[in-house]
């Protein structure tokens, strides 16, 4: 096992949608991130000036790295945290990458005619606990992407997915039928690092919180 460098703070960053906003946030909090950050295909980027090592991971895996302590802290969507239920501290709402979780279906969908309800989702745990709370019996089908396909070709009647602008749904002829919960990105911390590297982490939380608060008040 690779032991994390005890001096550098290891930060797990999600690749893709959230990445740019998360990087911008860190720069606003005065972390001197190397310029190569934006284009690099590297999976590990060290920034000795910032005292940090960044690992670039698939968004769904960020809480896993943090739970196991190979990353001290990370940026993860609330959707992922709800789905993965990892044992990590959820310290700050970064208020970036705002979107929401929703149930969608074809406009012709008729709940009364739905004898064997099937839900397709990238988030089987989240979807399952949501429908259980609603008292609705459903079958969850896990897909890894292009969820909108499922109702169109008849794999499922409804889908559970994140919606940011609603464009993807519209382009595929789907309509939103229920809003489940708002989603934003969160700053998460490994419970051990939270104590063993408390100075570095507390400082980071404070600086980021100041930026988030500042944005809100603008």
């Amino acid at each position: 096992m690779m032991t994390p460098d005890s001096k550098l703070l290891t930060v797990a960053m999600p690749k893709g949608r959230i990445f740019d906003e998360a990087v911008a946030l860190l720069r606003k909090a005065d972390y001197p991130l190397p310029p190569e950050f934006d284009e690099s295909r590297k999976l590990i980027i060290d920034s000795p000036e910032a005292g940090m090592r960044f690992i670039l991971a698939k968004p769904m895996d960020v809480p896993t790295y943090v739970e196991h302590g190979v990353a001290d802290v990370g940026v993860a969507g609330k959707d992922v945290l709800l789905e993965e239920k990892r044992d990590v501290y959820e310290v700050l709402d970064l208020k970036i990458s705002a979107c929401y979780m929703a149930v969608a279906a074809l406009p012709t969908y008729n709940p009364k005619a739905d004898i064997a309800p099937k839900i397709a989702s990238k988030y089987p745990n989240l979807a399952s606990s949501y429908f259980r709370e609603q008292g609705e019996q459903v079958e969850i089908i896990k897909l890894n992407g292009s969820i909108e396909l499922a109702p169109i070709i008849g794999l499922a009647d409804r889908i559970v997915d994140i919606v940011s602008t609603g464009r993807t749904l519209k382009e595929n002829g789907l309509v939103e039928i229920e809003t489940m919960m708002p989603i934003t990105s969160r700053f998460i911390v490994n419970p051990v690092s939270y104590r063993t590297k408390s100075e570095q982490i507390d400082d980071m939380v404070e600086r980021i919180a100041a930026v988030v608060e500042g944005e809100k008040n603008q």
Partner: protein
Amino acid sequence: MTKLFMFEKPVGMKDTLPELYQLKKEVKDAIAKEVTQWGYAAIETPTLEYYETVGSVSAITDQQLFKLLDQEGNTLVLRPDMTAPIARISASTLKNTQRPLRLTYDAPVFRSQQREGGKPAEFEQIGVELIGDGSNSADGEVIALMMSSIEKAGLENYQIAVGHIGFVNAYLFEILGNEARVEVFRRYLFEKNYVGFRKEVDQLPLSSIDQRRLKELLTLKGGPDIINKARQLAESEPTIKSLQQLEQLIEVLEAYNLKDNILLDLNLVMHISYYTGVVFEAYSEGLGFPIGSGGRYDGLLEKFHDPEPATGFGLRLDRLTEALGKTKEAIRNDMCIIFSNERRKEAMEKAKQWREEGHTVVMQDLIGISDVDAYSAQFNNVTYFVGSNGNGGHAK
């Protein structure tokens, strides 16, 4: 279910091979010696307990219990921890013995794991229980003994977080005024969800002062000066009393000369309802999970109809050995005697003599080995008693 391979084990079960066994044993022996020297008497309890008794009062959630039925149809559990069985004993067989009672254990515990199958479902725990003493000295003693045990095990870079669940409960109650709301906030702390905690605060119809006081709870983490900060926020008698207890505990730990590795964390909630007072967790640098934990559980013995205060700690041997991270070298036996039938007796006498001198001696009949060179390469010293005459030949 797919057909099992013959070498498969149930999910989460692990074999311990000689190298790791050796390391574990060294760690266990070092800790056992230390806790014995502090006056804790070792006991053993059965692997199986009734679900209705020990199973239901233990701190481990129902989904994590391994359950089975006995012939009468009673539900049994594989013990998920050692604290509940020890509470059962001290409330029954040992009920009339002198208090305080100091007991120690070293035993495997069982917790069913769903996720990823890799997390151990059986692991060894070493710990102590100090029963019948509600004083700060007792809390201090178990923390000091846990730290000393960790050090004796050979771990240097570790940290202890100390909190007080009585403080959390009293503080939340004085602001929120009812137990149901306290439960909601305690759950957010247990789930480590500060974001949810703050959002819940914003939703409640509280004065801005009380909202601020609730949010301040999340920042009560650091050195002993945190207690003063908490005292400025506290208003009710029980809250202030729990802070006094913490202060006295710090004094006890200072008398032990321990404070460098200790961090106060007043929002540490390790279990939703089990603990009642001082709680603590131990961490090692470079390992993502706690290596041990403990605290005061004054409500548990009552469930066995013997209300009395109690505190204790448990260390996870698997994580402790992982944190030590020693390179595991293959065990090399000292000596080997390779003999043939003609000189068996002579070889045996030599082996006996060397063993009496304290050496480890493997005796191996030549007929039993297919590759003599490869076999003998494992040993530091190989002596041959082969052939019909002459003296024992030395090699290497």
